[in-house]
């Protein structure tokens, strides 16, 4: 009876109590260590397989990466010029602060066993500067956000989780909307958009930066379907996340540092 009362009170009253959160935080690290131990044989096997890779394959890969690096460097030159130009414009417009985004590279180490949620564990935590609320990026676009950090590991929720929603805007028209997770790994929903809104299949959705949680301008999803039914006030828009949320292990965590006043 007492234990049942304890359960209910911890669920309904003390869910966000500092002590409870502290226990959960330390559990993240413990669980991550246990996962590491369990997965050790798999890792060892993968490492052995990598060591067996032939020399020519590796050379090919180095060549490919070098080319890719050159292309990226070329693109970033232009980006640097644009950034400074942008900074000058912002200074002219007297917008208060510039925001520098710093990236922390992390790896997804586990997926939460709870089948109703899309939660992953990444291998960077408070000691690496990963905090609750930071955005998590994949190679192509936004993946999710950090919800709880332990010392060395964190838990992050993906944008498709069915209780997650984020403010986006259509890149083409600037139309703002809220993209909700659907609980399916390849689908986001936009529910409350007037039926006459300017949104089409193929439109790119980017973060709008409203709400202050996600920085603006990161690609999120591409619209796959717009359903406008007769007599309905709202269109039902579905979109597919740009980054493959269920593939790949490498992610980036955006550490926002609010920069000093814009240099003139």
């Amino acid at each position, binding site marked *: 009876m007492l234990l049942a009362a304890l359960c209910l009170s911890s*669920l309904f009253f003390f869910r966000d109590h500092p002590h409870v959160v502290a226990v*959960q935080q330390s559990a993240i690290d413990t669980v991550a260590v246990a996962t590491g131990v369990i997965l050790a044989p798999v890792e060892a096997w993968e490492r052995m397989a990598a060591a067996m890779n032939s020399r020519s394959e590796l050379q090919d890969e180095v060549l490919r990466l070098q080319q890719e690096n050159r292309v990226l460097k070329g693109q970033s030159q232009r980006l640097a010029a644009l950034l400074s130009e942008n900074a000058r414009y912002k200074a002219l417009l007297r917008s208060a602060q510039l925001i520098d985004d710093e990236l922390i590279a992390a790896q997804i180490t586990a*997926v939460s066993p709870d089948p109703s949620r899309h939660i992953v564990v990444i291998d960077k935590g408070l000691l690496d500067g990963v905090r609750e609320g930071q955005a998590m990026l994949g190679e192509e676009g936004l993946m999710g956000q950090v919800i709880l950090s332990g010392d060395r590991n964190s838990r992050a929720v993906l944008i498709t989780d069915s209780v997650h929603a984020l403010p986006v805007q259509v890149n083409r028209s600037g139309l703002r909307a809220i993209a909700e997770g659907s609980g399916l*790994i390849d689908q986001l929903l936009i529910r409350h958009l007037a039926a006459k809104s300017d949104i089409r299949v193929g439109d790119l959705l980017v973060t709008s930066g409203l709400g202050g949680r996600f920085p603006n301008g990161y690609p999120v999803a591409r619209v796959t379907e717009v359903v406008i039914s007769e007599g309905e006030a709202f269109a039902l828009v579905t979109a597919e996340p740009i980054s493959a949320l269920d593939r790949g292990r490498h992610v980036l965590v955006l550490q926002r540092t609010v920069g000093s006043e814009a240099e003139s």
Partner: protein
Amino acid sequence: MEQARSSWVIYLSLACALLFMLLPFPLEWRVLRPDIATLTLFYWVLALPHRVGVTTAFFLGLGQDLIEGSPIGLSSLGLMVSVLVLQSNYQRIRQFDGVQQSLMILVLLMLSSGLEQWLRNGIEMPNLPWMGFMGLLCSAGCWLVVREILRFFRRYYEVN
């Protein structure tokens, strides 16, 4: 009451069953993962109802919640109630044959996960998808295997 013997086997098996939750499963197939931890708990309650009971169920539930990252106490209540039911009927359930026992375990699993769903609604967490029922069927299907393995260990170490 006689002295407890080799009770570490019980706790070790429960811990190993919890570790089973950590094995990687593809995102879309997690629903079908058999709930070995709960089955292990049910086995020990059935075999040694004087050793394992509601308190163990409570702590196992805590462990599950910490591993899943769900709010603390979510799994405990369902486990506690189903263990209570099991404890008051263990003599009858012990007499059942394999199929009957698996069906009984299915009912108990439905009871505990049903309570969990009810709590999830209360705190506005997403519910399990309907495929979750298939997961319960998988778990119930694993019951006989789990029972045989744990029975072997119980006899080998003479746990009582």
